[in-house]
């Protein structure tokens, strides 16, 4: 076994032994590189986490209160809520658990080449498609990956494989401004290689440590190629349920597969999703009158009410979820001193308390969370109104500045956070008007508004966030921020597998963000939702993914 271990695991093992890497980080690296989770837990000297909460009972229905979106095209889902429907019938290749450890799922085992460029995925041999009992094979996987990664499909999985097995090319067309349009394609005909009926190899152009996690991105569901990319009532799948009813905006119903599920099937008989709209009060009253057994995510405004209802339980999880107030480099924010003033005028502790009930941690104005392994502590920036004012004077704005920030009305904490910060900024002479835009409208304009408040989802690595959001030309660089030195250092950090070295570079990156960065980070969120106490076998996932097959009802 030992000689077969990936060199990085040995390295990580040494770091772990030296105390440089904590257990959780070691586990993460080891499992990502293909060590089966129980072995990795053993290597780290940790007990294998047991499924607590007693023996599961069979039977019953669990009803989830959540939006019921259109489910027709899993590969292009833009909502976790939609994936929470289809994931009951379709499976992912890998599975990142509540503990941030990625485990095998449809893939039984994976191996990475020493340079991390080539990943071999070995599939389970006992998986069958529900409708026709056909064996699940490498051809099915290849078809799905190729479809997701085709630019024409429109899947957001593309963003995660760009640079790895996808390359950018110029289409030859030009946009309105005369800039050449770019698209993506597989960099090599052999990029997705079928080795045998149960083995797939991904041959990358560059190294990538995050492939197993990328395969668990929520639209990366594995569908029956015969269904042509469409998911509907009765659609085939390898999962534990069959969708028997879908009424978008109202209700979806899933019935457990009777036999032949590779994971042993579901405990409950059926799973239902009931659409309660966007009103968080309706979600609470539905829970109170037991019309639903759980809801997708709780709102800050309803937390106190739920605490008082005896049959309900609040589930909480730490995440790297946040929202950042970010500016474009245009007047008056083209001067870095004005951007600094904005940070100095903010009191993250107060925002956390007022807008998020203290659930989480105060932000430090760089987009690397304490939950990220390479997080470097460069200090908490306390509110300093005098300094903010001085910076504004220095920048040539003795009378303060006026601006307008765009934000969303939902979830409720976002608007509260913006209102709190606007009050704080006012003290320093930064007068900001709030423009509340409906979510749908906000997401059509999020990169275009000069000053906005944008939600950022939980991601396992700090380098992933910086690369996506702050690298010159990064896919989601909403600030249009560009700093050549910063870019170089991100690449440097990505090249180090030793967390220590990565952290040293990260400290420099964080300081650059504090000095001239385009963002204010008020807080890191704890995410929460509510369940009926009779629901067992459920733990809140940091990404709010819901797996119905593990749940059971203790009546």
């Amino acid at each position, binding site marked *: 076994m030992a000689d077969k271990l990936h060199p990085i695991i040995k390295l990580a093992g040494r770091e772990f032994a030296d105390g440089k890497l904590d257990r959780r980080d070691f586990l993460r690296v080891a499992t990502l590189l293909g060590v089966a989770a129980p072995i990795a837990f053993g290597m780290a000297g940790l007990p294998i986490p047991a499924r607590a909460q007693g023996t599961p009972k069979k039977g019953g*229905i669990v*009803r989830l209160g959540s939006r019921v979106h*259109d489910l*027709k095209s899993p590969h*292009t*889902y*833009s*909502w976790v809520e939609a994936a929470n429907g289809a994931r009951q019938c379709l499976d992912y290749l890998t599975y990142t658990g509540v503990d941030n450890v990625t485990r095998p799922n449809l893939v039984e085992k994976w191996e990475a080449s020493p340079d991390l460029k080539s990943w071999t995925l070995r599939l389970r041999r006992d998986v069958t498609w529900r409708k026709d009992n056909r064996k699940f094979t490498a051809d099915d996987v290849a078809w799905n990956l190729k479809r997701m990664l085709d*630019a*024409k*499909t*429109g*899947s*957001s999985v*593309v*963003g995660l494989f*760009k640079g790895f097995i996808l390359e950018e090319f110029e*289409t030859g067309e030009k946009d309105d401004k005369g800039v050449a*349009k*770019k*698209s*993506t394609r597989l960099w090599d005909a052999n990029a997705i290689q079928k080795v045998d009926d149960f083995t797939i190899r991904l041959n990358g152009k560059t190294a990538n440590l995050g492939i197993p996690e990328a395969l668990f991105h929520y639209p990366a569901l594995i569908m029956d190629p015969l269904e042509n990319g469409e998911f509907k009532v009765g659609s085939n799948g390898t999962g534990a349920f069959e969708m028997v009813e879908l009424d*978008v*905006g*109202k*209700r979806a119903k899933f019935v457990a597969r009777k036999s032949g599920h590779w994971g042993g099937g579901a405990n409950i008989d059926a799973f*239902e999703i*009931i*659409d*309660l*709209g*966007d*009103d968080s*009060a*309706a979600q*609470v*009253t*539905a*829970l*109170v*009158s*037991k*019309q*639903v057994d759980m809801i997708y995510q709780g709102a800050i405004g309803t937390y106190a009410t739920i605490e008082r209802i005896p049959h309900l339980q609040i589930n909480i999880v730490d995440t790297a979820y946040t929202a950042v107030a970010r500016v474009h480099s245009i007047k008056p924010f083209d001067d870095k001193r004005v951007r600094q003033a904005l940070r100095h005028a903010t009191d993250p502790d107060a925002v956390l308390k007022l807008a998020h009930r203290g659930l989480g941690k105060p932000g430090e104005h760089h987009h690397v969370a304490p939950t990220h392994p390479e997080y470097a502590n460069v200090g908490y920036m306390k509110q300093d109104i005098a300094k903010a004012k001085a910076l504004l004077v220095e920048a040539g704005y003795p009378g303060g500045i006026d601006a307008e920030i765009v934000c969303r009305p939902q979830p409720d904490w976002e608007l509260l956070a913006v209102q709190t910060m606007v009050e704080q900024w006012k003290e320093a002479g930064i007068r900001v008007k709030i423009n509340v835009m*409906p*979510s*749908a*409208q906000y*997401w*059509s*304009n*999020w990169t275009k508004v000069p000053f906005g408040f944008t939600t950022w989802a939980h991601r396992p690595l700090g380098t992933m966030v910086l690369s996506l959001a702050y690298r010159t030309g990064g*896919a*989601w660089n909403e600030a249009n921020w560009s700093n050549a030195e910063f870019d170089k250092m991100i690449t440097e950090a990505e090249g180090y597998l030793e967390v220590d070295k990565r952290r040293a570079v990260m400290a420099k990156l964080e300081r650059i963000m504090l000095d001239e960065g385009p963002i204010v980070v008020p807080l890191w969120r704890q995410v929460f939702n509510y369940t009926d106490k009779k629901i067992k076998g459920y733990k809140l996932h940091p990404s709010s993914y819901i797996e119905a097959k593990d749940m059971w009802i203790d009546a």
Partner: protein
Amino acid sequence: MLRYTAKQLLNIAVTLLAVSFLVFALNELTPIDVARKLLGPYATQDQVDILYKQMGLDRSLLARYWEYLANALSGNFGESNLYRRPVAEILWDRLGNTLVLAGICFAVIVPFSALLGVLAGMRERSFVDRAVSVFASVCASIPEFALGVFLLAIFVVGLGILPGTSPLSTSGGWPIWSQFVLPVAVVTLYDGGYLISMIRSSMVEVMRQPYIRTATLKGMPFRNVVVKHALRNALITPFTVILLQLNYLVSGLVVVEMVFAYPGFGRMMLEAALNKDIALVEAGALCAVSVTMLTQILGDLGYMALDPRIRV
């Protein structure tokens, strides 16, 4: 009367045409990129561009409108982007739900407010009058969402005898009829408060007329005076107002539908507009305009029947 009706129907056709174009053009101004919306914030720009072309959004406004109109005239209202189903299917379903709710509300509101309005108005400044008037003004001045929350606090959280939401599904363990109680109560109290005041003042007016005094003086029992002489006349003025409630009940229930998670027309329209689902917004707007104009014609015709002095 036939000529009047024909003229009005022509009027409706012209208005619908104008509205359909206006909605199409105004929708253009909403700063939402449909292709981006469908693929989500994390799709790359070139993926969005490809879908944009596939949906034919790169063509001119007039070309798209013309295509829409031609399809609509042949009975094809297109497919909803949001629900990915033919517009007709989703529209009739949600409109049906709202019509059921509106129908029950209307059937409760009219007799309820007519009874209270007449009772209050027939003896001005009596105890009943004062009690009803206070009740009506309180109801009419509390916004629907607040009224909804009050009733929810009492009957759902406090007593636990009614369901908190009305998704029109029995899987929550509550029968369908019980899911109507609170929404109907909110609409009845809110809208009824207003109607009661209207009917009351009209009744007060009528009771002051000389012919009522004559009838009373000649010894007619008070009950007959009210039923035979006052009632019909007192209801002529509120009649149009009552019919106008139909508009409100069809397209104005959005707040109640949100509070009680009721899958109705108002909520559907709100979500369609927020998602720039043009096919659904168009069809919904045309429906709402038709309902408004038809109730107006109905109101005019009814008015003629009630008041012989009016002829066209």
